[in-house]
């Protein structure tokens, strides 16, 4: 009887075997391949790469398969793998104005250098379930594609900055912080905040960004630009002394344009909120850009009144690997703490009951007129 209370090793092994079985599902159906996940669940793969903080489509797809489609679990698997990889150096900063674009839209200009490129998007689709997909029909034909812009496509924020309308970002040659090596500390510099947000939970970024639109931290944002595509990653090996290209990664960049009233020393101008994430993740990049701008409140002399402006609140709660672990750890046994609380509660109740009895006794004694009865 007593032994049954504590879990056994056999139970764990059996539970995990069952998990394997449920992952596979009905064996009369063909098994999902990692390549299928990678190809046909591409946006899930992108999200797992971003939150897993590791740009590798194959590993992300494998993690999704292993996690039975639980994307936070998949990101966790990827993070735990990533942590064991040897770091041999840091790349050069990627140049997004040289991005090989798949998509590039601006909400602030109808047309602009490089043009509006809609790319593959859910925008403007009618959200009607497409039963033709259920029929697993033939592959649909290729969509017509306009030729992508070639060469450098200037960023909208840069166009504004040239006119003095957009605040220039302070340049800083200091080595940016790295959350995978050093823990958060406050005040957290912007590069650290951005790194934190780039890996942050998409739902959390979305909700916080949304809250700034609803008045919790005034932002007045415009999408200056969203661009999705591939950028080259370059690395300078110390022994060579010049940069070599390692390959390309897929990223999404969002630059939000926000009003700024100006101050006595600075004329009114726009300020930016910045989002940059792995893969195709517009919602994530936009949420990130909104939250980034909100977190600049202090630097821009704005009141810190809303959750999205509170750096400690945002940065300590954005990571869904940390969050899911700690929330789910409540499933672990807490017998010992609970037992001490039980004893504590019983003691408090006993002393309260005793005090009440003593009061009753006193009242009775007073009625009887015998002081001794109160003792």
């Amino acid at each position, binding site marked *: *009887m*007593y*032994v049954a*209370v*504590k*879990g*056994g*090793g056999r*139970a*764990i*092994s059996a539970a*995990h075997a069952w*998990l*394997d079985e449920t992952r596979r599902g009905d064996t009369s159906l063909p098994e999902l391949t990692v390549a299928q996940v990678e190809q046909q669940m591409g946006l899930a793969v992108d999200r797992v790469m971003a939150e897993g903080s590791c740009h590798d489509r194959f590993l992300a797809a494998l993690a999704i398969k*292993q996690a039975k489609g639980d994307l936070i679990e998949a990101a*966790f698997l990827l*993070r*735990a793998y*990533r*942590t*064991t990889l*040897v770091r041999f150096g840091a790349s050069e900063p990627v140049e997004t104005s040289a991005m090989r674009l798949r998509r590039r839209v601006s909400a602030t200009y109808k047309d602009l250098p490089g043009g509006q490129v809609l790319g593959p998007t859910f925008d403007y689709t009618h959200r009607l379930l497409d039963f033709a997909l259920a029929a697993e029909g033939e592959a649909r034909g290729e969509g017509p594609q306009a030729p992508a812009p070639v060469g450098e496509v200037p960023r909208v924020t840069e166009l504004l900055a040239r006119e003095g309308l957009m605040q220039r970002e302070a340049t800083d040659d200091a080595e940016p912080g790295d959350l*995978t*090596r*050093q*823990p*958060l*500390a*406050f*005040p957290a510099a912007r590069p650290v905040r951005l790194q934190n947000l780039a890996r942050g939970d998409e739902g959390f970024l979305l909700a916080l960004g949304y809250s700034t639109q609803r008045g919790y931290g005034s932002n007045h944002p415009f999408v200056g630009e969203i661009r999705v595509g591939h950028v080259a990653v370059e690395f300078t090996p110390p022994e060579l002394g010049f940069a070599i290209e390692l390959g390309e990664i897929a990223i999404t960049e969002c630059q939000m344009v926000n009003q700024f009233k100006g101050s006595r020393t600075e004329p009114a101008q726009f300020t930016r909120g910045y989002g940059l994430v792995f893969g195709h993740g517009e919602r994530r990049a936009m949420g990130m850009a909104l939250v980034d701008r909100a977190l600049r409140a202090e630097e821009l002399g704005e009141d810190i009144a809303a959750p999205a402006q509170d750096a*400690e609140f945002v940065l*300590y709660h954005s990571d869904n*690997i*940390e969050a*899911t*672990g*700690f*929330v*789910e*750890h409540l499933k*672990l*046994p*807490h*017998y*010992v*703490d609970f*037992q*001490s*609380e*039980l*004893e*504590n509660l019983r*003691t*408090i109740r006993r*002393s309260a009951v005793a005090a009440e009895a003593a009061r009753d006794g006193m009242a009775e004694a007073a009625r009887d007129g015998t002081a001794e009865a109160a003792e």
Partner: protein
Amino acid sequence: MTGIDDPRASGTEGYNFAYLDEATKRMIRRAILKAVAIPGHQIPFGAREMPLPYGWGTGGIQVTAAILGPADVLKVIDQGADDTTNAISIRRFFTRVAGVATTESTAEASIIQTRHRIPEKALREDQVIVYQVPQPEPLSKLEPRRAETERLHALADYGLMHVRLYEDIARLGHIAKAYDYPVMVNGRYLMSPSPIPAFDNPKMDRMPALQLFGAGREKRIYAIPPYTPVRSLDFEDHPFRPIRAPHACALCGSTESYLDEVLTDDAGGRMFVCSDTDYCGERQVAVAQEAAE
């Protein structure tokens, strides 16, 4: 699942001894050395993602991984017991990634990783106890901001903690904290002992073994060197008192150990048994031998 919890499972090729790479272990050991040098002070460290979830012992696991050698004998307990699921899982993890010997015997272990308890048997100088810590900041319930609590520690400004204890007495007649009961280490730093029951706090005081604390999610390491004074906060006229259920263990008869309450039916039936399974088992053997003689 390529079960981390299945010691026979393969798939650890390519991983370093004890999972973490040597550079990471060195970083953690540096944090531990700092922590030992400033007893009770929380040292930030670059905690890594581990293959176990945050809140399930990642801090303790990283500390253990950093100090573990091939000759070590590891004991892992959760709630005092070697056979709780998470203890089994962590023990298997180290069996798998480090191949070290494990034990359930407190006396035989060189490293004891624990969640929520200190073993009943007194620890020795040649042992290290590693605590898993969910929230290293003892002031977090009173002041959620790190930047502010760090300042309070730097200034040893702990009046707020005493206010909390004062309020308990004013409201309830005594201090209501039953576990994770705050302690002063070496007369300087206020420290969370991790969520061990207050019953275990006195064992920390001047303990011969090195005590290490790892908080993975919060990315802090702290330590109590051997024989360091550790005092539970209290008032002169409301002294600290460890609480245990006022019963004897139903299995070994101990009236000194910390007890778990086990419900035996749905009609209020219950029994109390030692939470420390090794201690209880040893006593049962001793009692049986005595009876046989």
